[in-house]
Structures are given as C-alpha cells and as structure tokens.
C-alpha cells in the first residue's frame, strides 16, 4: 500500500500546551518518513480464537443490565480510497454512564456499576462494517485544569490490515457542549478533522424501543490496497 503524507493539522499536535502532559511526552523531532515494505504490505493475520461471546455487547457482561442509556454504535472502516478494511480488529473501551472507568487508577468520585466494565472487541465484516451495543458514557473531570471535564467519548483501537494502518482514537457524540473546552479534542487543530471524530445520530440504526443508534465511520491511512484476507 501507499501512505501519503498527512496534511498539517490533521494529526493532533504532539505538544499542545493546553493539554499539560504533552509538554514533556510529545516528541519534538518530525517523524522520519521511511520505506518499510513489511509495515505497509504484510497482512496482519487474525485468528478466530480472538473473539469471545459477548465481546460486541458491553451490556451483557454483568449479572443484570447496566445503568444508563443503552445505545448501538455502528460504522464502516475504509482506507483512503474508500475500499473496505475487511476482517480487521477493532477494540473499544469507555467509562460507565456516571463517568467512571473500571480501572484501579480512576479516582473520580462517581459510582462504579457492578454490571458494566466498558470494553469490547470485534472484527469488521466484508464491507468493513462493525457494530456494537453499549451504554452511553458520561462526561468526567480530569486534573488538567480548573473545571476540566472530558466530553463523553468512546476509545477506539483499530489494527487495519497492515501495521502502518494502526490507529487509536476517540469517538464523540453530537453537539457536546464541552467541545470548546477540551484540550484533547482541540489538540487536532484542523476543524474538519476534529468534526470527523463526532458520531452522528441515526434514526435508521435506532432499534425500536430498545436503543438509539449512532454512526461513526472511520478512514484509515493507505491507498492502492490489494485485496487481503480472501
């Protein structure tokens, strides 16, 4: 595959002063553009043993239903040519409806939900589509600055079909009032690139009286793909 240079402002700034922990963690040197045929051509192989029952329904992992607003999130993963990224691994993780992660380091004074752990994984299908059921995550405070609250988000980890397509990102919800105040969201300086992180509500994906639907399409890097994985 071919990996063209990404326009300025599309990737987040590696050092973005308003996001304080970037000050010492962000690399200062521009990444070195290299030829590495293995990283752009060798297909990642996925084995069926990777998935377990319930991995794509985060509401079924407890003794009973978790608290909060049940939603379904779906979308299509493509490359820059619009070709589906098939049979590729996607991982998601998030906090619960009250804004608390199931994680020993999360000290937010909000309740854990004994029926919600907030992580899942699945493979894209032949069209590059994925779909999972979860609870709408809550906003939560973090210590970056006074009244620092993260807009509600779901973390996504995507492997694509070759190593160079690897991506970790966050999906947001429409019209969140916290967007202007969030330095993580705004570390992406190109407004259009930020907007592409926001899912859209979909009445078509909404399931009857059960749950609202959101659509989040993802474009991974790479062009001129040859068909992988049959």
């Amino acid at each position, binding site marked *: 595959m071919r990996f063209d240079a990404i326009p300025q402002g*599309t990737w987040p700034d590696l050092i*973005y002063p308003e*996001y304080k922990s970037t000050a010492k963690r962000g690399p200062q040197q521009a990444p070195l553009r*290299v030829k590495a045929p293995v990283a752009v051509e060798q297909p990642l192989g996925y084995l069926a043993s990777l998935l377990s029952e319930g991995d794509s329904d985060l509401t079924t992992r407890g003794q009973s239903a978790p608290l909060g607003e049940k939603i379904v999130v779906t979308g299509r993963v493509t490359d*820059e040519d619009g070709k589906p990224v098939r049979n590729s691994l996607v991982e998601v993780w998030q906090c619960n409806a009250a804004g608390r992660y199931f994680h020993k380091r999360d000290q937010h004074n909000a309740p854990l939900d004994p029926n919600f752990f907030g992580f899942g994984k699945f493979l894209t299908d032949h069209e590059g589509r994925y779909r999972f059921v979860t609870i709408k995550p809550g906003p939560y405070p973090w210590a970056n600055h006074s009244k620092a609250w993260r807009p509600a988000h779901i973390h996504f980890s995507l492997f694509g079909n070759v190593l160079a397509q690897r991506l970790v990102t966050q999906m947001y919800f429409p019209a969140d009032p916290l967007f202007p105040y969030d330095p993580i969201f705004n*570390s992406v300086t190109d407004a259009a690139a930020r907007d592409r*992180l926001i899912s859209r509500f979909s009445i078509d994906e909404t399931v009857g009286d059960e749950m609202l639907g959101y659509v989040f399409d993802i474009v991974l890097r790479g062009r001129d793909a040859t068909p992988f994985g049959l």
Partner: protein
Amino acid sequence: MSQPTPSLPITTSQTIGPFPHEGWRWAFDAHDDTRAVQIRGRIVDGAGAPVDDALIEAWVPGATSGTVLPGLPGLFRTHAVEGGAFRLCLPKHGVAGEPAAYVTLFARGLTKHQFTAVFLADQTDAPLLAQVPAERRATLVAKPGEGGGHVWDVVLQGPSETVFFDYS
C-alpha cells in the same frame, strides 16, 4: 508523481489516555524467559521521568503462527510498570534485513501513537536502519544487557529522543 484521484480524509488520532489496561488486557503477553529474544528497558519523557502508563506493541516480522498471543500472530503487547520499565520476550525471526520487532507506543499525553523499531546488534545492516541519520541510529539498537538479554530504552523527547517513523 501525479495524484489522479482525490483521497478520503483520514480519521485522526486521540490519546490512548490513562485507562486502556482493562480493555487491552486480553492481549497482554505473559513474560516468557524461554523465548530467544529478551529485551528490557525503560520508557521516559523529556525530563527523564518514567512513563509508567505507556502501552507497547511489538510486531515480529514474518511470524504467522505459533505465538501465544490469542488471535494476532506475531504481535506482542505489554504495558510499562513502575519506573517506566517494560519487557519484550520475542521469538527470533529468520527474515534477513529486518529489525527484531516493529514497535508501536501509546501513552497518556501522547496525542498520537508513535511507530519505531528495535534492532539487535547483529541486525544493524537493515535497510530500515540505513534510512535513519547515522547520529540517531543508536536510539534504535538494543545493547547487550548485564546478565544476558538486551537493553533498549525509549526516550519520548529531547536530545536523545528515540527515532519515530512515518511509514510511506
């Protein structure tokens, strides 16, 4: 070269944040002293402070099966611990001209994942390493460790910053 057709704009990155561990745990690789390539190191920031919440993925070229990670042949995922310490226990591959592993780093405060690679002392004739300016190559080469194994430290920022890649 011409650009005949417009491309779709990519989905950008956001930091992994401090809380990925539970969701990523299913694929954490157990330390295995029997594997042929034992690499240990520390990941530090621009002030020399440990990055104890980093996530590290090592992908061994050429591996197609036989690894213990469930589902992703050749991929070894681990996380840094106290002091920024990490261990990579990898199989030795037989692919000439390749690093011991292609490495991807993630951390809170790192707004985008970083691609790099680790080479052993007998892999320094690799074409990938030849593309790195000579004065920075040492950041990608593991040194022999006391008592065996290899030592490779990762520096996110500063004069001895590890070389990070943009694959083309």
